[in-house]
């Protein structure tokens, strides 16, 4: 290669081939390494903090306020270490900021929604986590992660709409997150 494509059909075929290679490389590079750690870390946080729901909403909120910063620090530290080992560093600061901002936005939105619309406890955040994770798995083009995201949504909605106590939603979704994260960790697409 090295020549300019001509203006004819051969040049267009060459250009098409190059565009195809660019698209393939972009897909390969954009696969984030850390799809499973947030599931395990925040799933464990949700499961451990679930019994606090028996003490009321304030205890649950305080738990999340306390656990979220170290959770994000742990996940981003792991992602940065993995990236360094693999030899490709991404915009980690941007992703960390995006994670914290979206977490805060979802948390506040769920508080406001459940107060205003009297939604079943746990439905809002469960759906937010499932949809957010589905978007992330789509971005990473990771099929197993998408399956985990859909499972999260199904488990969360089923528990939220069931007559089970509210704190069991957090426990069930938390355990599903941990299980899904560990399965992704051991799966063929784990990096």
């Amino acid at each position, binding site marked *: 290669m090295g020549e300019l494509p001509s*203006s004819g059909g051969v040049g267009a075929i060459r250009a098409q081939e190059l*565009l195809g290679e*660019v698209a393939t490389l972009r897909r390969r590079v954009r696969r984030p390494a850390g799809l499973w750690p947030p599931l395990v870390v925040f799933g464990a946080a949700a499961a451990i903090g679930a019994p606090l729901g028996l003490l009321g909403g304030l205890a649950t909120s305080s738990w999340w306020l306390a656990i979220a910063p170290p959770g994000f620090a742990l996940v981003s530290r792991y992602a940065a270490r993995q990236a360094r080992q693999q030899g490709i560093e991404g915009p980690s600061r941007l992703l960390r900021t995006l994670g914290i901002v979206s977490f805060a936005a979802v948390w506040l939105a769920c508080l406001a929604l459940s107060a205003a619309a009297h939604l079943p406890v746990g439905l809002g955040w469960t759906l937010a986590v499932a949809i957010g994770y589905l978007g992330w798995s789509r971005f990473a083009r990771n099929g197993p992660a998408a399956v985990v995201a859909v499972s999260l949504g199904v488990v969360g909605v089923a528990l939220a709409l069931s007559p089970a106590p509210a704190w069991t939603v957090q426990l069930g979704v938390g355990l599903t997150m941990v299980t899904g994260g560990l399965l992704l960790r051991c799966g063929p697409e784990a990096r």
Partner: protein
Amino acid sequence: MTHPARRLDNAVHQRTRLGILTVLAGATRVDFAFLRDTLGLTDGNLSRNLSVLEAAGYIAIDKTFEARRSRTWIAATPAGRRALAAEVTALREIVQTVDRAAAAGARLAPRTGPARS
């Protein structure tokens, strides 16, 4: 308006160098070994192409020592990212130009059927 093929940049318009810039554009910085393995190149081939891109101001190379071993990090410069975007745009326009010409030819084709004897 110039044909899009005239806007292709010689430094970028080469399969390996286009691949290098594509990988670099998707990250903040990339290790030499990762780049070599991802693109399936030899050390020498990658080094030669990196030199071309560095001379054009499209990449920055940073050699560091980590855990007592040398490591080479490569990053795309803003000029490199712009050059890649321009290259991809030009390639798309080349494809579109030929597609339009082919479509126009197809519309004209029925009018020029075989002559009756």
